[in-house]
């Protein structure tokens, strides 16, 4: 390939990756009343308005709650699961690995539908509970994978050394394994947090009146009001995600684990 072709492909790729991001940022800076690009005039009034919309406040709080606690729950299940898959030659561990990866492969919309039909409706669980369970389930595979990959880099004989020095198996895990996979756990948390926060398809099925995650709330807001505040909010969320990943990368080389 000639240099020119390479530059064109590279340019196109970057345009498609960064372009939408820039469009959203500028669309939110419009001085006009309707969502449009290019923006009509420039102002930050829509960025300010985002913080005054009450439903956004509630749905942001819900999304935060789900992202933080759903991911923590996924880690509480995922770390022991990854450990067991990694250290013990369990019968059918290959099958378990495949099942754990399923939520990554199966479209979220199917997961949402299935959970609604066979979990939420028959058991009559609250919407918040349903969302919590769903987000935990969706984040779990990422937790298992990321933690697994850092466990792979940790030799099993270190735990044996700890046991010989007097640790119980559990102490060996908390004193030797956990501190050495800290980076992987943090990476899994961030990945889970971002995945959960941006999740739409499954949450769409489970959201109900007054209980919506932020992305779903933005969708319904747009059905009624077509003003640039959604663009402003999107831009703010994108900045939040980027900031989190950036800090993580700075702190512990996040990209090593993903």
């Amino acid at each position, binding site marked *: 390939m000639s240099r020119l072709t390479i530059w064109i492909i590279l340019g196109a790729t970057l345009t498609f990756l960064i372009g939408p991001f820039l469009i959203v940022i500028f669309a939110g800076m419009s001085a006009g009343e309707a969502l449009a690009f290019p923006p009509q005039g420039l102002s930050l009034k829509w960025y300010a308005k985002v913080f005054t919309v009450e439903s956004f406040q509630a749905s942001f709080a819900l999304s935060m709650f789900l992202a933080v606690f759903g991911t923590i729950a996924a880690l509480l299940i995922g770390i022991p699961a990854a450990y067991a898959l990694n250290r013990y030659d369990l019968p059918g561990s290959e099958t378990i690995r495949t099942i754990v990866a399923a939520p990554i492969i199966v479209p979220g919309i199917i997961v949402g539908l299935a959970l609604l039909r066979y979990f939420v409706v028959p058991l009559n669980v609250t919407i918040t509970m349903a969302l919590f369970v769903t987000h935990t389930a969706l984040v779990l595979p990422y937790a298992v994978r990321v933690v697994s990959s850092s466990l792979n880099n940790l*030799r099993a004989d270190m735990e*044996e*050394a700890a046991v010989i020095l*007097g640790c119980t198996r559990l102490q060996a895990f908390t*004193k*030797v394994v956990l501190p050495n996979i800290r980076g992987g756990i943090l990476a899994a948390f961030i990945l889970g947090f971002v995945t959960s926060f941006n999740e739409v398809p499954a949450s769409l099925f489970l959201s109900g009146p007054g209980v919506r995650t932020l992305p779903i709330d933005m969708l319904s807001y747009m059905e009624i009001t077509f003003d640039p505040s959604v663009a402003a909010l999107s831009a703010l969320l994108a900045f939040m995600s980027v900031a989190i990943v950036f800090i993580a990368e700075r702190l512990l080389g996040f990209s090593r684990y993903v």
Partner: protein
Amino acid sequence: MSNAFVSLTDLTLSYGQTVAVPDLNLDVLEGELIALLGPSGCGKTTTMRAIAGLLTPTSGRIVIDGLDVTRTPANKRGIGLVFQSYALFPHLSAFENVAFGLRLLKLPNAQVRARTEAGMATVGLTGFETRKPAEMSGGQQQRLALARSLVMEPKVLLLDEPLSNLDARLRLEMRNELQRVQKDTGITMVFVTHDQSEALALADRIVLMKDGKIEQLGTPAELYAKPATAFAADFMGFENIFRVEGSELVSHLGRLSVGYEAKVHMLAWRPSGVGVGTGPHTGRVISSSFAGGHREYVLNSPLGQIKADAPIETPEVPIGHEVAFDLPMATARSLAA
């Protein structure tokens, strides 16, 4: 033996259906430095792991210091194990690595500090307290792993190929270090190696293993001078081993009449026991290399290749030339099997 400190009785060790060590019997005396020597896969690590409690025996008994520990978990055996890979804790400083086991004992801080510092001094690592293992050299990591085990004052210290990852110079240094520590502390040590010279240099007794079984057990002098089997002889440097039939030596390649009759199964010679330059037989030189005090030849003979060392004073025989050699009864080792 009555004063056995570590006693393995009818020990069978397996991985699933695979038996790695069938029916092992071994007594280690108190304060002894014993070497498990053998080729790769012969069950040395497996035996160590069983003594340490990391592997539960399929059958048999392990008695340490008069106590049956066969079912005692690894963290209650009071045994030290230095891993071939060191298995240091990368997230802890050198000091905390050594203090790790002492802290588990919930000893007062001052005591932990004192014993840790003493342990680090023993292996010459004073001043390295705050380093992480990754910031230390191979030899220093090795010594750190040793200190971590020693400060626990274990009844028995097991070392799995403790010197194999070191370069020649450090290896020698660590050898002396180990020997010194052993003499100073009087600790009973079992160490694994597949390096014959290491076992000979360090051990009070050598356990030569083959396929999970003990092939021969004895002092270095015994094993070196009197290997009992072809396998042991080969391991101890008798590189020329032949079957005996009447007054002939036999290999799978051919036979050679030697003019004396030995009433044994096999005869073996070290390269240094083979005469070069004079003798009743002739061979063609196929390789010749200078080895300091002597010259190492490989000769092609009716029996196949023969390894022979010649004093450096004798004139060199060029490759491809014929040379007389001798397999004298005087330097031969008789083997029963």
